[in-house]
């Protein structure tokens, strides 16, 4: 693969990115590649938040005294990092971004089998993400990680239910995406 490398390529004039313009054509799109882009930008956004939490977790032990963040905030950062990275990055990046974009192309299909369900699953995912972020910035959940799954102290039932509900929404939203892809 050497001789073909030198020839110049140009972008095709019409593709899924510029075929239609406008907010409506994007927000109500049924195209699996555009929905994959939605997932891509959502996961990049939450990855920055979860990555910031991870950076703070690692920066705090630079000094022996707990001086960068309080012990309570430190525990909340663990929950935040764990929940975001597992349910709002790792799960959707496999099925939402890669599977959504690639599988119809790989099998020579025009789209996924149920494109409206596919779009719906992204909206469900986005709503779950908003509830999760609201819960984290409005108070947070200091159960740490991975106790976010299993250990709910009595005083933290409400943020825990918020969190539990929203990451389940996020994880389950991958189900309708995965079904037509499979």
């Amino acid at each position, binding site marked *: 693969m050497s*001789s073909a490398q030198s020839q*110049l390529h140009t972008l095709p004039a019409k593709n899924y990115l510029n*075929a239609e313009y406008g907010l409506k054509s994007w927000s109500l799109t049924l195209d699996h*590649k555009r929905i994959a882009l939605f997932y891509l930008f959502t996961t990049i956004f939450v990855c920055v938040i979860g*990555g910031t939490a991870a*950076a703070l977790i690692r920066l705090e032990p630079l000094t022996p005294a707990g001086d960068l963040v309080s012990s309570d905030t430190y525990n909340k950062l663990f929950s935040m990092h764990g929940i975001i990275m597992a349910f709002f990055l790792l799960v959707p990046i496999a099925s939402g971004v890669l599977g959504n974009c690639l599988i119809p*192309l790989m099998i020579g*299909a025009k*789209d996924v089998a149920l494109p409206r369900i596919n779009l719906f699953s992204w909206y469900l995912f986005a709503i779950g993400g908003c509830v999760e972020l609201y819960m984290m910035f409005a108070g947070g959940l200091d159960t740490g990680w991975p106790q976010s799954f299993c250990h709910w102290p009595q005083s933290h039932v409400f943020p825990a239910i918020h969190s539990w509900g929203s990451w389940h929404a996020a994880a389950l939203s991958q189900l309708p995406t995965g079904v037509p892809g499979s």
Partner: protein
Amino acid sequence: MPRRYHSYRPEFQVLSVLSTAGASILAIGYLLPTMYLLWSLKYGEIAGANPCHAVGLEWTVQSPPPIENVVETPIVDFEAYDYDRVARLTGVIG
């Protein structure tokens, strides 16, 4: 020293600073590809639809693909890794 401790005894500070230094290297490892991917997106040469002469169906469509990926549903009557077929079609030996 157990993990996930908010504060700790001073004699462990050297190890902790070492660990944070390692995490910084990891952060650079994330930032580097972010920067060169963004650079390639803006200034990189257009790669074309199938730069590596791969044989999968996903490489037969234009790049970026059109709204509905294929004009008509392809009929696959060849093996999955038939690189000779691609070489015959393109004249390029991969």
